[in-house]
C-alpha cells in the first residue's frame, strides 16, 4: 500500500461527493433556501425585537441580520453534516456503503475521507450563501472571507464527525426523524447562533450554561470571529477537541468487531 493509493482514494471519495452534489440541483437549492429564509424573513422580523450590545468581534452596533449570519453558516454545516450521515444510513441500507468498506484501506481513513468530502460540500454552500448575503448588505472585511476557510474546515469536520457517529447508531432511515428532534433542533436553538449568551442569561442562567458547553456554539463563535479576521482560541480548541472525540467514537462505531454494526445484526 503506497501513499499514492491513499491520495487517489481520498480524491475519488471527495470527487464523487462533489459531483453528486452539483448534479443534484434540488439538494443544492434546498441547502441554500433554508438559511436564506432565516436571513430574509426571521432576522428581518426579529430585528426590532432584539437589541444587541457591542460585543467582540463587533466594534459597533450591528443589525440582527449581521449577528445571525455566522449562526446561519453554522446551520448550513450542521444540516450538511446530518445530511451526510443520512446519506450514509441510506448508503448502508442500499448497500453502496459496502463498496467503500471493502476497499483495502484502513477504515478510519475511509471515514475521514468521507468526512472531508462532506466538509468540502458544506464549504461550497457557505461561500454561495455569503455571496448572496453580500448583496443583502451583509459585508465582512475582505480578509474575513479568507480567514473563515480554516474555521469552516474545522467546524465542518466536527459537525460531520457528529453525523458520522450518529449514522453508526441508526439502523434505518425512519429513525432519522429522531435525530432531527433530539440533535439538530436542540443543538441549533441552544446555541449562540440566534442570540448571544448574555441575552440568554437574562432569561435563564441554566440555558445559557448549556449553550456555552454546546460544541455547536463554540463552532459558531469560531466562525464569527474568523469572519472578522480574529482568532478565538478557546472556541477553536473546544471545536477541535469535540471533533477528535466524535471522530474516535465514530471509528469505534464502524469497527467490525466492536461497533454497532455487529450489534445491529442483519444479513
Amino acid at each position: 500500500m503506497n501513499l499514492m493509493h491513499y491520495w487517489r482514494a481520498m480524491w475519488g471519495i471527495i470527487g464523487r461527493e462533489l459531483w453528486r452534489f452539483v448534479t443534484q440541483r434540488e439538494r443544492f437549492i434546498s441547502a441554500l433556501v433554508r438559511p436564506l429564509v432565516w436571513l430574509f424573513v426571521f432576522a428581518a422580523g426579529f430585528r426590532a425585537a432584539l437589541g444587541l450590545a457591542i460585543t467582540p468581534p463587533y466594534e459597533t452596533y450591528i443589525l440582527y441580520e449581521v449577528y445571525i449570519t455566522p449562526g446561519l453558516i453554522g446551520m448550513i454545516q450542521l444540516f450538511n453534516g446530518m445530511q451526510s450521515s443520512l446519506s450514509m444510513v441510506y448508503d448502508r441500507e442500499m448497500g453502496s456503503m459496502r463498496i467503500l468498506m471493502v476497499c483495502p484501506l484502513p477504515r478510519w481513513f475511509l471515514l475521514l475521507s468521507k468526512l472531508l468530502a462532506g466538509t468540502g460540500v458544506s464549504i461550497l454552500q457557505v461561500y454561495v450563501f455569503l455571496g448572496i448575503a453580500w448583496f443583502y448588505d451583509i459585508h465582512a472585511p475582505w480578509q474575513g472571507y479568507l480567514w473563515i476557510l480554516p474555521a469552516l474546515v474545522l467546524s465542518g469536520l466536527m459537525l460531520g464527525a457528529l453525523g458520522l457517529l450518529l449514522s453508526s447508531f441508526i439502523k434505518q432511515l425512519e429513525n432519522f426523524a429522531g435525530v432531527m428532534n433530539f440533535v439538530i433542533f436542540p443543538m441549533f436553538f441552544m446555541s449562540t447562533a440566534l442570540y448571544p449568551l448574555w441575552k440568554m442569561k437574562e432569561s435563564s442562567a441554566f440555558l445559557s450554561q448549556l449553550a456555552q458547553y454546546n460544541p455547536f456554539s463554540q463552532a459558531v463563535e469560531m466562525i464569527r470571529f474568523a469572519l472578522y479576521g480574529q482568532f478565538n482560541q478557546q472556541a477553536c480548541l473546544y471545536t477541535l477537541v469535540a471533533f477528535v472525540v466524535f471522530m474516535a467514537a465514530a471509528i469505534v462505531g464502524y469497527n467490525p468487531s466492536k461497533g454497532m454494526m455487529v450489534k445491529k445484526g442483519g444479513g
Partner: protein
Amino acid sequence: MKTLPALAIENLSFSYGGKKALDQLNFSINAGECTVLLGPNGAGKSTLFSLITHLYDSHEGRIQLCGFDIKQQTRLALSKLGVVFQQTTLDMDLSVLQNLYYHTALHGLSRQQANVRIQQELERLNMYERRFEKIRQLNGGHRRRVEIARALLHKPSVLLLDEPTVGLDVPSRLAIVEYVHQLAEEEKLAVLWASHLIDEIYPEDHLIVLHKGQIKAKGTVNDVLDASQSTQIKDAFYSLTQGEQA
C-alpha cells in the same frame, strides 16, 4: 509444491447476541473453481459474506484470502477480493464510467491504468459503448454486468457473488451465469456464488449446502448427490434442508 487455496474458511462461527448464525464452518475454494453456496433464507449466507468482506468480525475461526488472514492482514486480504452484493451498489445518478472510476480510485489505480482496465472489462461484457450512460438508464441485467466489471477491475483472485441474478429475466440470468463460469475457467478466479436457483449450477461446480448456519453437504455435485442419496440437485437440496424453499 502445494498451492494455497484462494479462499479458506476454518472453524468459523458467528452469533448475533446469543443467536448462533454460523456454526463451525470449514471449506476452501481453489483458483479456477466455481463454488455455489445453496441455502434457504436465513441459512447464514449473507452473514458469511459479511464476514469474508470484513464488514463483521468473527471472534471464532479464521478466514484467509490467498493466505492472508482477514483479521490480521485485512488490507492485503481485501485487495484479493472482488464482490458483487445482492443489492445494487451503483450510484444511479452517475455514469457507468464515473462509477467505475470511483472503484479504481478506491483500489489505488492511476487514471491510465483505470482507463485500460475499464475498457477491457466493459468490452468483455459488451458494455463499453454504454460507458457514458447514467446507471439509472440501464436495465437490471446491464447494471449487473457493470457491477461484475467493477468487481474485476483490480484483478482480484476471489470473486464473491451474493445472489447476483435475483430479479433478472431468463436471458440476462443465463448470460451472467455463463460469463462467471467462463471467468473462473479462463482467469483462474475462485468464485463463491450464493444462489437460490438450482438451474444455475453447472455439473463441474462445487456445492456447499448451508442450513441454519451449518454446512449440511459440500463437494462436487456428485458428492452432494451421494451424501443425500438423491439423483437430482433439487431433491438433494430438499432432503438436506428438510423441505425448506431455497
